[in-house]
């Protein structure tokens, strides 16, 4: 039984569709303007919305994304008086399920509806599976990150080759480990091969092993990492660095899961699952002849592109909390808190080194603030503070509160006082390290007044 909303200007048409749906055992309701429809959709938990294009107060096509973004993530079927190819294309681009003409709706509705409901059921079980995925170090709630996590869920429950791409420090290895840890192979080895660290002369024997006497120094046989990954996962990090000659050999291994150790003609089998990672543009490398196209296509069973940290700015606070928690546990200290401007500084920085760089910055601040329960911006590495100062100047913000405008235009008394109060509170908190009694003593203000002011300027002693 699905909950369905019909947004259509034609009352009689909407009523007739409602009757048909009710006869199918569904729960329909209707609205006749875009505004009314959006409001009702926001209040209900709809599985499906049938949306007219021409509504008295707007174009239904323009509301698709807004409606898709509701908590219930309803599917949208566009219903048009007359078919319009451009409208149909635009609807699908905006995320609509399909585009139907009204005259055909009663015939097509039943099949379309059952497909929609079947799809939603699959989606629900997939989400439930995702919730069960052990995320461990994978911290973040931004849409771009959640999209990557969704793919991780799919990858974990399949055995397809996975290609993880993204800038350095975006967490490719952590993702690879999570795929392994959530897969049926988790009891076996997760074997890391750092292709960038292996000298060309070592690659073959490291991957495929060798027999005794295969080359000078091979005093005994070695099974090689591909064999170590039998029943487990082989993680080829920086696969773009794999020498071309080796790419050819590896492609064969990938196709047949068989290989010959160096110095042997006897084939060995290994049932491994492959995860590869790169920060290179492998597509561009194939065009330049630097990477085999056939191997590239093989690797991309599931392709997870990890977003850079600058595109998931909202995760900076969550990540900072996670790193601080981890540091406190590691060093057996109380968790340190930080003030609002600490996160402001972190958010203004572009993070070319991504999550890894953030982790280092937080650790560096933690070490700087070894005796302080609070982290101040002064504890941050200088390059981050500098980037923040520059961004403020570039945005045209005054570098510090200026009460006296000098020769310029004099600010209103209320504005000048606010600027002074906010600046004063920042300095007070920094000087007293967030200690309210000390702040009261230094400022001569009562505890109540201090709390009022902190609230007014959205500052906090313990949390930003």
């Amino acid at each position, binding site marked *: 039984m699905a909950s369905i909303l019909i947004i259509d200007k034609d009352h009689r048409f909407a009523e007739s569709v409602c009757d048909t749906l009710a006869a199918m055992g569904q729960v329909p309701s209707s609205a006749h303007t875009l505004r009314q429809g959006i409001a009702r959709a926001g209040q209900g938990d709809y599985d499906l919305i049938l949306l007219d294009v021409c509504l008295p107060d707007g174009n239904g096509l323009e509301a698709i994304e807004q409606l898709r973004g509701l908590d219930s993530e309803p599917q949208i079927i566009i219903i048009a008086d007359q078919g319009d190819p451009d409208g149909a294309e635009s609807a699908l681009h905006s995320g609509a399920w399909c585009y139907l003409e009204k005259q055909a709706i009663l015939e097509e509705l039943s099949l379309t509806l059952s497909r929609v409901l079947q799809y939603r059921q699959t989606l629900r079980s997939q989400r439930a599976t995702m919730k069960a995925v052990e995320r461990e170090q994978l911290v973040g709630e931004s849409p771009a990150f959640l999209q990557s996590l969704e793919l991780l869920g799919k990858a974990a429950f399949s055995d397809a080759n996975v290609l993880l791409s993204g800038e350095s420090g975006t967490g490719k290895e952590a993702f690879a480990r999570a795929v392994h840890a959530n897969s049926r192979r988790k009891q076996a*080895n997760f074997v890391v091969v750092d292709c960038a660290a292996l000298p060309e002369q070592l690659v073959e024997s490291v991957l495929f092993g060798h027999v005794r006497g295969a080359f000078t120094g091979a005093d005994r046989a070695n099974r090689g990492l591909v064999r170590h990954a039998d029943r487990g996962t082989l993680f080829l990090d920086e696969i773009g660095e794999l020498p071309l000659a080796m790419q050819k050999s590896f492609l064969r291994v990938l196709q047949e899961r068989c290989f010959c150790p160096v110095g042997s003609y006897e084939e060995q089998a290994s049932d491994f699952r492959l995860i590869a990672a790169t920060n290179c543009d492998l597509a561009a490398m194939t065009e330049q002849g630097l990477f085999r196209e056939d191997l590239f296509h093989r690797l991309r069973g599931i392709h997870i592109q990890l977003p850079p940290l600058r595109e998931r700015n909202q995760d900076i606070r969550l990540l900072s909390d996670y790193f601080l928690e981890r540091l406190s546990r590691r*060093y057996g200290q109380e968790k340190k808190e930080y003030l609002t401007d600490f996160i402001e500084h972190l958010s203004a920085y572009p993070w070319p080194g991504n999550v890894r760089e953030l982790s280092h910055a937080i650790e560096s601040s933690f070490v700087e603030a070894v005796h302080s329960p609070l982290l101040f911006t002064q504890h941050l590495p200088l390059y981050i503070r500098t980037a923040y100062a520059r961004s403020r100047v570039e945005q045209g913000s005054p570098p510090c509160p200026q009460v006296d405008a000098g020769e310029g235009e004099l600010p209103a008394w209320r504005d000048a006082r606010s600027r002074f109060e906010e600046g004063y509170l920042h300095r007070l908190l920094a000087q007293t390290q967030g200690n309210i009694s000390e702040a009261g003593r230094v400022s001569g203000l009562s505890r109540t007044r201090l709390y009022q002011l902190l609230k007014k300027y959205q500052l906090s002693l313990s949390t930003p």
Partner: protein
Amino acid sequence: MDILLYNSDHGELETRLKQNMPSIEALCSVEKCRELSWLMRCFREPGSLPEAIVLVARDREELQAFTNLASRLEQLFVILVLPDAGEETIALGHSLCPRFITYHDSDFQDVVAVLTRIAARKSREQPGSGGELEERL
């Protein structure tokens, strides 16, 4: 590049390792450590860690002890020298996600070759810090 070299073995392995030390020291600044307790303490105190670590596991018990450091080792380039090639030892070794694995009977030329490559990569990533290293070596 800074590396930490942990080896508690005083036998023939140490001799082979020592033979390669000049090559390793030509590549990076090496801090040596022979006591597990010192290694543990070093990892439990706040502060910066070296960029790479060579961990020679004397036996499986010592390898097991390294697993207590797993969360910190994640942040480093780990070269692991395993005491044997038994399945359990290898499985324990991979639980540390090392970037390179070799064994006690290695002549350590493989370790030197890997360190040479990563030192060259580091120097390329940090202009002005000896970008000519790879050519020189």
